[in-house]
């Protein structure tokens, strides 16, 4: 799977499940692929200008002030809050294994979501689930 073209790998992820083939290809060419080694940081708490990421392969930790809060894996995404609000991230994201992601610069996320409302809706569902989880444990 890691050898398959990016568009084919995107088609497997919930976030992009509603897109047709030429749209998947366009998305694959809009995002950039980045690979992080174990222990490398992807997003840094308190540092401006970060991006939106979708995990293609591998696992990452969410760390707030150095303490581990959650784990992310294939199909998960992060960085959308600071990309949309312009605020600095409130957590570090650190690769736990070799981590392969797709990256979209933060300033481009809004335009991207407006161009692909089906992705926006999928993202909204995921955000709703996160809010519900957060409230349940409050």
């Amino acid at each position, binding site marked *: 799977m890691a050898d398959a073209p990016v568009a084919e790998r995107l088609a497997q992820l919930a976030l992009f499940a509603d897109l047709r083939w030429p749209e998947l290809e366009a998305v694959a060419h809009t995002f950039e692929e980045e690979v*992080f*080694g174990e222990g490398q940081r992807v997003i840094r708490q308190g540092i401006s200008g970060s991006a939106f990421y979708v995990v293609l392969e591998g696992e990452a930790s969410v760390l707030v002030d150095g303490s581990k809060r959650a784990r992310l894996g294939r199909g998960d995404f992060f960085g959308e809050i600071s990309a949309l609000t312009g605020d600095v991230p409130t957590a570090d994201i650190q690769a736990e294994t070799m981590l392969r992601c797709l990256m979209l610069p933060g300033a481009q996320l809004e335009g991207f979501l407006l161009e692909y409302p089906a992705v926006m809706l999928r993202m909204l569902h995921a955000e709703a689930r996160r809010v519900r989880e957060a409230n349940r444990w409050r």
Partner: protein
Amino acid sequence: MAVERPFPPGAYPVVVVGSGPGGLQTSYCLRRLGLEHAVLSEDDGPGGMFRRFPLFERLISWTHPSADVPRGSRAFEAHDQNSLVADDPELGSLVLDYLGEDHRRPSRDEMGAGLAAFAERAAIDVRYGCRWESTRRDEDALVLVTSDGEYRCTAAIFAIGMTEPWVPSIPGLELSMHYVAVSKASDRYHDRRVVIVGKRNSAFEVGEAIVRSGLRELTLVSPRAPDLARLARSPLRPWYLTPYDEHVRGAPGRYVLNASVERVERREDAYLLHALDPTRLEALVVEVDDVIAATGFRAPLQDLPEIGVATVLDGRLPALTPLWESVTVPGVYFAGNITQAAQGLRKHGVASVSSMVCGFRYNARILARHVAEAVFDIRVERRRLEPTAVGSYLVDELDRAPELTMQKGYLARVLSVDERDGVLDQGILPLEVFVDGKNDGVAVTLEFDADETIRPVVYVRHCGALQETSLPPHPLRRYDDVVYRDTLERLLAPLLRLA
């Protein structure tokens, strides 16, 4: 008379593969540190990719003579993006000697001559005509098998460029001609209908060149729409954009399509290219006489993926640590334009210029020191600074350091501060190394902000807590005035009390 070739097969601490600008710069820097190494190249002379590319146009990077700044000086490096850098001023700015009158950007031959002059005057030894063929691990050593025999080393540095044509797996695209094989004969495309797959540097370069040969129809196609705002600021703009300009103004037979290529099929003397435009229901079918795949390049990694080197972009580049080592195989390092695979912080999406000589020449210097220290325990002295001198020193670096001017947001001047050693100059390092490190200190860089305005940015780590401060831009980019110095000194005061 037979000339004895250097570096016979055997064991060396470090083996550098490649004799392009990345290999030459790395060898020069390793030698300055006294680190013994062999340099191998399958070519028969220096120059690397500039022996072949770019095919048609001049480079997109500048070499500007300057009346104010002496050539060969550190400050001159910002005027000259193409020459390799050296501690000896006689070895710097050599591309300038070969640049034709009235030119500000070198041709391939002028660039090659500048690199050959560096190799000769700096006496960089290379075993030419020695092809690296395969690789294996042997306990702690790496073994590079070459056409001349086996080389054992602790660290291998591959400066092998992104020089191998890469074509995506689209049915029928293998029928096309890759950019590298495009004819330079001026009448080759006369009255022809041509489609170019791709919209990056090589696509525009070849499009611009063949437009001049009087072709009948030219179509550029790739899935992603060009980012016009970015293109307007791109170094490609003045050279390569005729096809795009003619398309947007409606010239007959000039098309730029944002569509994914589904397949290419042969039809007697012509080709049919089927493309899917996401905004249309039916496929677009374009009948053409020639299909050119300007789909880019990959690093010729040979069997490195088989010994575990992880790759990115469909295998086109190795995945790298911030100091250009394979993320998966220790001891395998990369130099030259492959260092673009280490992305840095990429704040606001801004990429490094490690794909260009003006970027990777500095990466090579940092890599050489890192390999010397981390692999071979050669300690390079750090200069100690008085705390009272720190403010002036840092504004001076922001003002003049060519590494910061060239590698914006990627390289930084880094000082460490602690009670025992005081303030030590850690040199120019990737910003990411400081930001993701643990030591207290300060890093200064020049960055593009969200509006693409150039600003000095200061990162201070004090008692483990990192603070980022973006300073205001200066219209003439002069940072050595009292406002910047005062701001820096205020930001640094709590930290410098440690020293």
